[in-house]
């Protein structure tokens, strides 16, 4: 009894937990894709392959769920797209043995840009994203397929995407996975190394990187989001854990400011039963 008793302090607010049971998560995602595609009566998805890790993972998951014949990859380079992007997208097509199509968007985008007058890189980037959406939805009709979404949870929460552009899809297997987790799953599925290793980029203009755009690394922002969103920890406590206050507050602001991108448009209520308020059916209604 001479030893001093051990003291166990109160458990601090949860540490950011971005770990995954890879096998079980893959099983859920594959089941999701297979079930949600087939219940619509279709058997196929189209996915835009940018050469990046998100669309690569989405394609790998879709092939596991639907087989190679169930996935059509669409490469939609713009004139300024990095040649390595196309190479990496082709590597995905080759590794998976899927049908791939190439649809150059340069002419369409340029015609639009010329008509629209002076548009800066941000608007041009949005136009590219929306032209790609246009192509994917058109190809999906041709192939009797659904458009697969490739936005991850980090992008969705921060609003780092173009509404009605890359944010548009029928099904999104990645929307509840942070970028860090996308990387882990992509590694587990042996996505080509050049894709795993390169800096994430929207590739809307040369030398663009996500982390420069966002002003924070994915590693840091994912840990902040995991605390803020998943563990419901208040900003002050996150700062006390060693994260920069301005980053935490900026992340919080980005989340609230981009809420409109995550919801359907607002409808003015003037009837007894309005879509979204008192007309509420599951999306999987009658399927």
């Amino acid at each position: 009894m001479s030893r001093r008793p051990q003291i166990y302090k109160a458990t601090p607010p949860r540490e950011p937990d971005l770990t995954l049971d890879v096998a079980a998560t893959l099983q859920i995602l594959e089941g999701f894709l297979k079930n949600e595609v087939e219940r619509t009566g279709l058997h196929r998805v189209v996915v835009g392959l940018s050469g990046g890790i998100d669309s690569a993972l989405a394609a790998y998951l879709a092939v596991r769920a639907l087989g190679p014949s169930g996935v059509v990859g669409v490469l939609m380079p713009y004139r300024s797209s990095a040649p390595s992007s196309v190479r990496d997208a082709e590597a995905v097509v080759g590794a998976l043995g899927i049908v791939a199509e190439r649809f150059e968007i340069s002419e369409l985008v340029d015609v639009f840009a010329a008509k629209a007058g002076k548009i800066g890189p941000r608007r041009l980037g949005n136009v590219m994203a929306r032209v790609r959406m246009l192509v994917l939805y058109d190809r999906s009709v041709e192939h009797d397929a659904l458009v697969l979404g490739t936005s991850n949870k980090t992008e969705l929460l921060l609003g780092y995407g173009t509404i009605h552009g890359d944010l548009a899809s029928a099904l999104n297997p990645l929307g509840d996975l942070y970028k860090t987790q996308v990387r882990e799953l992509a590694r587990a599925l042996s996505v080509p190394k050049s894709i795993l290793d390169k800096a994430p980029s929207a590739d809307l203009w040369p030398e663009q990187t996500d982390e420069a755009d966002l002003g924070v690394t994915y590693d840091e922002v994912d840990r902040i989001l995991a605390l803020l969103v998943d563990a419901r920890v208040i900003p002050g406590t996150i700062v006390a854990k060693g994260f920069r206050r301005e980053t935490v507050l900026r992340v919080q602001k980005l989340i609230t400011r981009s809420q409109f991108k995550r919801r359907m448009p607002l409808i003015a209520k003037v009837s007894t039963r309005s879509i979204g308020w008192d007309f509420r059916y599951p999306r999987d209604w009658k399927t």
Partner: protein
Amino acid sequence: MQTVRVALAQIAPKLGDLESNLELHKEAIRLARREKAGIVVFPELSLTGYVLRDQVPEIALTRKSPLFKKLLAASEALDLIVGFVEESPGHRFQNATAYLSKGRVVHVHRKVYLPTYGMFDEGRDFAAGDLIRAFKTPAGPAGMLICEDAWHPVSAWILVQDGAEMLFTLSSGPTRGAKPGRGITSLPIWHDLLRTTAQFQTSFVVYVNRVGYEDGLNFGGGSIAIDPFGRTLATLPGLASGVVVAELDGEVLRRARAAYPLLRDENLELVHREVSRIRQVRFQLEETAAGGKTR
């Protein structure tokens, strides 16, 4: 209770498609009969699917509905525990489960605790049940709970005080991800809760959770039968459909209740007294001369 074989039917109901789901039930019933099961247990809302929302009044059944009569007919062969939306008198739509035997409705339990938080919105769509009662089955006294009901320890406690020896819990439990070393996180949490319930109540616990996908949710499965000592009798893996049969042995229940006479030592009078006192304070009731309470 007598020894009885119970089939756990871990199915993936089709959302809002009662006819398809009736076929799923019949298929599981065939498998259960072949293994000489006396009871087959289906998940919560097994006839309708879970994310119903405004479909609730559209797919609700009364005991006179043709589809309900088909189920009753199926219960001639073996007892059924099924989940459905019941339209109660007064047009209250309830998340319900029925025990059907020999073409008769033996008991209906209506979910008392409707989760309305986080991803759940049942309080919007359903009327809450207000009874928790044990009932007699051919194999012995039993009780039924629906999912969230089991998270309120008084539910199982009341059923067992009311005589139940077998506790059936039906569930449509969505998963919330999978972590290293734990797998799908919701399954061990459920299993711990159910095992503790079996031990606290020295009763058999049979849990049937659905699988499948609705609106991006996925349901975990992991159905399990546990004996009154807390030992697993049978279990089904997560995420996949399947049927497993567990034999609930009346002699094991007797031994457990002899070894751990928790129910013998329960003090209903004490519970009643203390709950009455707490209730009086909580709801600011005053004692009347006659001993009754008024507001």
